[in-house]
């Protein structure tokens, strides 16, 4: 007698298959049942009506759909992400273009004034803080910013991207300072380049100011305010950027920035020597993808220069700034007042 397993195997080997006639019969009747069932089905289960039919059945959905379409068309036609076919500036295209820039030279001015007094230029150590700027930008090597007063170089910031190092040179004092740069600081420095400007423009709210003509170039102007990039890059006690407002003029044909103006209101902080300041900067762009020597971005201190120390800073800053330094804990109170006392004793022996 066979075992249970064998019986299971034998039984499992039995089969029946449908022939063509059976297939046709069952499929025809089932197909008819399917067709008939759709007529008597609940509305939700009925096949057929397309999404448009459903939308058009109700006034609410009809008008909602119309509103969505109008909104989408508006976005396509008016937004910066639309096509450039309407002759305007497309920021996405501009961003792509500036990302493709390898090198450039930017020229402009930087002026520091007292708030509410546009003609009252801030003075530092007897010099008016009204600089002519030249910036050298290289996607590969970094950024150099030179500030001139008259024909004399007052400062040079060299940010070396591969080394992640920044060198500040102050030729009038034969002093230099170096520090390591973070990614955020790198972005801050890049904000002065077309790439940075477009990023600033696109990362927050901006307003179109209409068309203009700059030196024969048809441009469209944009205004932006308080971009996120400026926030929390450095502690407020060091550099307290309270308000940023910028205008960018972008060439319609070129789809590239032509000019930028920025106004920064900086509160009392270390870098403003504890003064409230307005900083107005104007940059014009033009020299793109020209050859720049790698040595321009060298962060080695020049020969004959000595490192900037706290004592150097204390010599040139006013008393209120020194008090601020003490408040920040940058300089010990005894050190500041001892130096002041020594200076006074020297100048006034009585």
């Amino acid at each position, binding site marked *: 007698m066979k075992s249970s397993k064998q019986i299971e195997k*034998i039984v499992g*080997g039995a089969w*029946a298959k449908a022939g063509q006639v059976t297939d046709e019969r*069952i499929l025809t009747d089932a197909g008819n049942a399917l*067709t008939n069932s759709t007529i008597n089905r609940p509305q939700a289960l009925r096949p057929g009506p397309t999404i448009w039919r459903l939308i058009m059945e109700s006034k609410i959905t009809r008008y909602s759909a119309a509103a969505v379409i109008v909104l989408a068309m508006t976005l396509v036609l008016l937004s910066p992400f639309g096509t450039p076919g309407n002759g305007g500036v497309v920021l996405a295209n501009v961003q792509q273009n500036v990302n493709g820039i390898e090198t450039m030279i930017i020229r402009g001015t930087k002026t520091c004034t007292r708030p509410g007094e546009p003609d009252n230029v801030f003075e530092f150590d007897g010099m008016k803080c009204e600089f002519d700027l030249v910036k050298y930008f290289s996607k590969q090597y970094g950024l150099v910013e030179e500030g001139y007063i008259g024909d004399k170089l007052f400062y040079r910031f060299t940010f070396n991207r591969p080394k992640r190092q920044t060198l500040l040179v102050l030729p009038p004092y034969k002093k230099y300072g170096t520090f390591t740069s973070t990614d955020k600081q790198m972005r801050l420095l890049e904000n002065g380049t077309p790439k940075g400007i477009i990023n600033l423009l696109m990362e927050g709210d901006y307003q179109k100011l209409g068309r203009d003509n700059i030196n024969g170039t048809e441009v469209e102007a944009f205004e932006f305010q308080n971009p996120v990039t400026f926030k929390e890059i450095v502690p407020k006690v060091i550099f307290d950027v309270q308000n940023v407002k910028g205008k960018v003029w972008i060439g319609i044909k070129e789809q590239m920035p032509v000019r930028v103006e920025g106004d920064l209101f900086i509160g009392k902080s270390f870098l403003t020597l504890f003064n409230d300041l307005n900083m107005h900067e104007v940059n014009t762009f033009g020299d793109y993808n020209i050859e720049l020597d790698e040595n321009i971005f060298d962060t080695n201190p020049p020969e004959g220069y000595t490192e900037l120390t706290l004592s150097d800073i204390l010599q040139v800053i006013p008393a209120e700034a020194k008090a601020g330094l003490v408040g920040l804990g940058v300089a010990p109170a005894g050190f500041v007042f001892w130096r002041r006392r020594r200076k006074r004793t020297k100048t006034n022996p009585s």
Partner: protein
Amino acid sequence: MKDRRLVHRLSRADPDALRQIYHRYKDDLLTVAMALLADPDAAEDCVHDVFVHFAGTPADMRASRNLRGYLMRCVANRAKNLIRRQQLQPDCQMDEQDYASEQDCPEGRLIVSEESVRIFEAMAKLPTEQREVVSLHIHGRMKFREIAEQLDVSINTVQSRYRYGIEKLRTFL
């Protein structure tokens, strides 16, 4: 394509989905029907009725989680109803005209091999409860637990029916 997707398409009255489901399960369903009814015409009618009902009642589509099990249960229920209502007694000796052998008529109605006929005849001698359990477990590939849920009996009852059924088949085969 997965069963769930097919059922969804069927709920939108897609005849192609119906065709695919039919071709996927028709032979297994016919085998179970044959094992339960041992009558080719009745088996064909059984599967026919199940598919017509299945296509015409979208409310039952929620069974899509286990389409195979759902269809097997439908066939088993339909077969039991046929037996109950028509007092249909499975043929212990099937007429040769009732079915076509594979070689003779591949385009015909129900195709059953000679060995299968012998097995279905042997199964027809089992009591309906045992036949049902044996067929659903072996041909329908349903677990004892699923069969117990379907028949609303305990799993032990299902297993004992299966055991008795197999024991009897040992004497017939």
